[in-house]
């Protein structure tokens, strides 16, 4: 556990970046610092590994005040990932990742062994091992940055906007990988972002800071969305929060309807027979839903080009948000549900999902 106890940072120029911050960051959990620019997220993060010294107050790791530890030793036991990646241009991917193990004196064989293992674990291609950072894509660089921070298996990881320099699609991939990795590793993670969606997606708990460096609210994501403490937090988490909060509510047993389907490659006649006048028919391939087709706009057979792919597929037992999104994004307005292996289970209408939301007597999650 990391504890902030009345931590204040006033920079030499008089800027009060962090003001009386007290909070606990539980072991094995992800705590996200979020807030508008200049609210002291980075300053708070960097005080943990003493890259910045607090003006007053104490930060403790497992009960030991960090001020009692040698900064270099302290930092070698804490993973550190920054937005720009900070990879060493003159070292290969392998050498970059092995940095801390080598600093710790593990010896080359063991350090590079650990680095190789992480390359695999991070889903990086083995061919990247001997490449230099300049030869990598932005997403690959961030993965290497995370791998480098993990190399010596530190119990604590500090991550300052690690995914904000990559495009949204890559970012989402990185976030998903990050969550998968954390499920295996169970590190104590402090994660800084200014993106509330990222905060609620990744955090076990989210600390919203306001400019001036005070804590506005500390809560698990679902609670934060459902019950912001004041106007500042409500404003910051923004619109759509009712909808986004549904992401944290597991869908109850929805009334799933069976759906008539055609196989990819079916003939125009087969589709017309299944459609029986309906404007959209669901197409499956080996049992997995692949898209919708409109019978009257079809050529001789159903090809991949005929598919309407706009609809999302929700997992049975996933969140209400996913189920509702599946229904709203489907051209037939019937949301496609699949099992964990991606095989079609049936469809659900937006109305049925909404009925479930309304039936949930607790209202929005709390």
């Amino acid at each position, binding site marked *: 556990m990391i504890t902030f106890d009345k931590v204040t940072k006033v920079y030499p120029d008089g800027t009060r970046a962090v003001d009386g911050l007290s909070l606990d960051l539980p072991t094995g959990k992800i705590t996200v610092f979020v807030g508008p620019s200049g609210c002291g997220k980075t300053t708070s993060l*960097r005080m943990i*590994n003493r*890259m910045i010294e607090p003006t007053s107050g104490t930060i403790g790791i497992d009960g030991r005040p960090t001020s009692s530890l040698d900064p*270099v*030793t*302290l*930092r*070698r*036991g804490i993973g*550190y990932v*920054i*937005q*720009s*990646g*900070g*990879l*060493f*241009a*003159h*070292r*290969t991917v392998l050498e970059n990742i092995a*940095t*801390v193990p080598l*600093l710790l004196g593990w010896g080359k064989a063991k350090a590079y062994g650990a680095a190789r293992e992480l390359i695999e674990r991070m889903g990086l291609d083995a061919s990247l091992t001997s490449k*230099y*950072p*300049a030869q990598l894509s932005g997403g690959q660089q961030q993965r290497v*940055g995370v791998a*480098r*921070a993990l190399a010596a298996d530190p119990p604590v990881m*500090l991550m300052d906007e690690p995914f904000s320099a990559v495009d949204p699609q890559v970012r989402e991939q990185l976030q998903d990988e990050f969550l998968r990795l954390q499920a295996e590793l169970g590190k104590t993670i402090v994660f800084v972002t200014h993106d509330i969606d990222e905060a609620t997606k990744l955090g076990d708990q989210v600390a919203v800071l306001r400019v001036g460096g005070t804590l506005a609210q500390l809560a698990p994501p679902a609670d934060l969305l459902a019950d912001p403490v004041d106007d500042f937090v409500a404003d910051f988490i923004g619109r759509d929060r009712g909808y986004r909060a549904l992401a944290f509510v597991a869908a109850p047993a929805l009334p799933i309807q069976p759906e008539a389907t055609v196989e990819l490659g079916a003939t125009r006649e087969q589709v017309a027979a299944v459609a029986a006048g309906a404007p959209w028919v669901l197409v499956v391939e080996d049992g997995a839903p692949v898209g919708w087709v409109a019978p009257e706009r079809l050529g001789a057979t159903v090809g991949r080009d005929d598919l309407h792919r706009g609809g999302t597929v929700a997992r049975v037992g996933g969140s209400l948000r996913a189920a509702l999104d599946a229904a709203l994004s489907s051209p037939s307005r019937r949301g496609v549900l699949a099992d964990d292996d991606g095989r079609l289970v049936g469809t659900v209408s937006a109305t049925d999902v909404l009925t479930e939301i309304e039936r949930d007597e607790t209202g929005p999650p709390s």
Partner: protein
Amino acid sequence: MNLVWAWLADPAHWQGTGGIPARIAEHLLYSALVLVLAAAVAVPLGLWIGHTGRGRVVVVNVVNGMRSVPTLGLLYVSVLVLAPRLRGDWAFLTPAIIVLFLLAMPPILAGAYAGVAEVDPGVRDAARGMGMSGLEVLWGVEIPCALPLIFSGLRSATLQVIATATVAASVSVGGLGRFLIDGLAARDYGQMAGGALLIGLVALAVDGVFALVQRVAVSPGLRPARPLKTHEAIPAS
């Protein structure tokens, strides 16, 4: 051209203490001496200033000031001042070395300083944040990343020193400059042009050696390096 060729091809010019090989050796010796001295001072100084960020303004002014000092004038002044106090060869060699040293300092200092100062702040921050000590950051990150610019500084200093070591001859020290001075005195244009040609060739050859060393010393991850422009001043802010 024929005169040059005739002068170069004459076997007599390739022998003895005044012969071409001996003059080349002298020239290289003076140049190397000066460069080693200048690098020994300017490289650590530049690295230190780049690493700590301290004393930057002083360096900017000193470097730019030194660049505007007229070489020949300084040479004659230092001969006048120093020659009476020194004996033998050193009486004339020392002023020449001082002048060349002052000439070599600015590019080397600027290269070493800029190389370290231009290391991405994020990279430096990551290095410290992972638990590298100040010296480990300097040795393990800043110097390797600064090498391309350090080499640029050294190479441009080397070219200037080899070209300017010629003036050493004008205060009656050896080196390839002698061919220019003696050739001028004797109106032997073949000798003059031949000497100039040799200076150019020596400069090219030495630069080539540097290029090879640089290829080996600089990480492939840093190529292609940004060349240091010859007259690039150290940014003041």
